[in-house]
């Protein structure tokens, strides 16, 4: 994986995320947080988890402290989540803009939340973050569709053709 290829995958992920957030626009805070029986309980729960994972990995990549996940009283509206995610996107763009081909191939050493040291090539971790986003974006898309707000196609080719 080369730096521009990594950026392409993240551009696609943020394009798809924006389709979800647009589909969620106008949803009430109550509906946003309403339990829908999914693993992450609600549309808010799913999207906050996806954003938080992306932000936590970004902090590791930038060698910054990993923040605690947002609490139950935070990011209660689509607007608040969008604002926070845009900030996290800016941080991750900064990292991706500077990453080199050598760094992508090298092992990235970090500590898990339990203190265990892990060594994994950076390209694997960057692929993991995109893939994790796809998984939970898919859940959010299904949750939105169930309340009559389908985000439409999230396929990579739709992104490319657009």
């Amino acid at each position, binding site marked *: *994986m080369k730096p521009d*290829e990594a950026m392409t*995958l993240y551009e*696609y992920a943020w394009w798809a995320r924006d389709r979800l957030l647009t589909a969620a626009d106008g949803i009430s805070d109550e509906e946003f947080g309403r339990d829908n*029986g*999914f*693993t992450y309980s609600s549309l808010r729960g799913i999207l906050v988890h996806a954003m938080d994972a992306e932000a936590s990995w970004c902090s590791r990549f930038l060698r910054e402290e990993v923040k605690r996940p947002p609490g139950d009283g935070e990011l209660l509206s689509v607007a608040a989540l969008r604002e926070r995610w845009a900030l996290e996107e800016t941080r991750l763009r900064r990292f991706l803009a500077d990453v080199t081909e050598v760094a992508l191939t090298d092992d990235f050493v970090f500590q898990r939340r339990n203190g265990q040291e892990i060594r*994994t090539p950076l*390209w*694997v*971790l960057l*692929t*993991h973050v995109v*893939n*994790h986003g*796809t*998984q*939970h*974006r*898919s*859940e959010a*898309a*299904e949750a939105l*569709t*169930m309340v009559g707000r*389908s985000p439409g196609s*999230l*396929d*990579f*080719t739709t992104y*490319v053709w657009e």
Partner: protein
Amino acid sequence: MDAEYFRFLYDYLYWARDKVLAAAEGLSEEEYKRDVGFTYHSVRGILTHALAGEAVWLPRAWREQPGPFLHEDDVPTLAALRERWQAEESKQRAYLAKLTDAEAAGSVTFKGRDGNDRTLPVWQILTMEFHHTVQHRSEAAEALTILGHSPGDLDLVFYTRERGL
């Protein structure tokens, strides 16, 4: 993206698929077909759609003409779906084993479902179909969890740890 990247991605894809299919083995036939309110209705419907996507898109990368779009009646049981998917997997693995970086960067022209010619870089086809399967596999995982049969963690990092990568 080079050929080795796609060999890695698709090996992960089949690893995660097998976790989903193993979880689906715990469903009764009625649960497998039960409408859970998702776009593709049931675990069967979702998995059939994921397989159908691979059966249409991957032959385009192989420069072969895909067969007709798969429907649930074509793979009515979990066993039938698994057998068909494994056949598609074998063809995809054989293709990936020989794929070169130059071929991954090159383009193919194929007939779209509307009959018009389309040209795409091979890496875009392989990326598109990977994410398509991940999207619908994720729906299947959620549907299975709702039915009390979670497939467990499907994250890429669990695959790499299990493979010692």
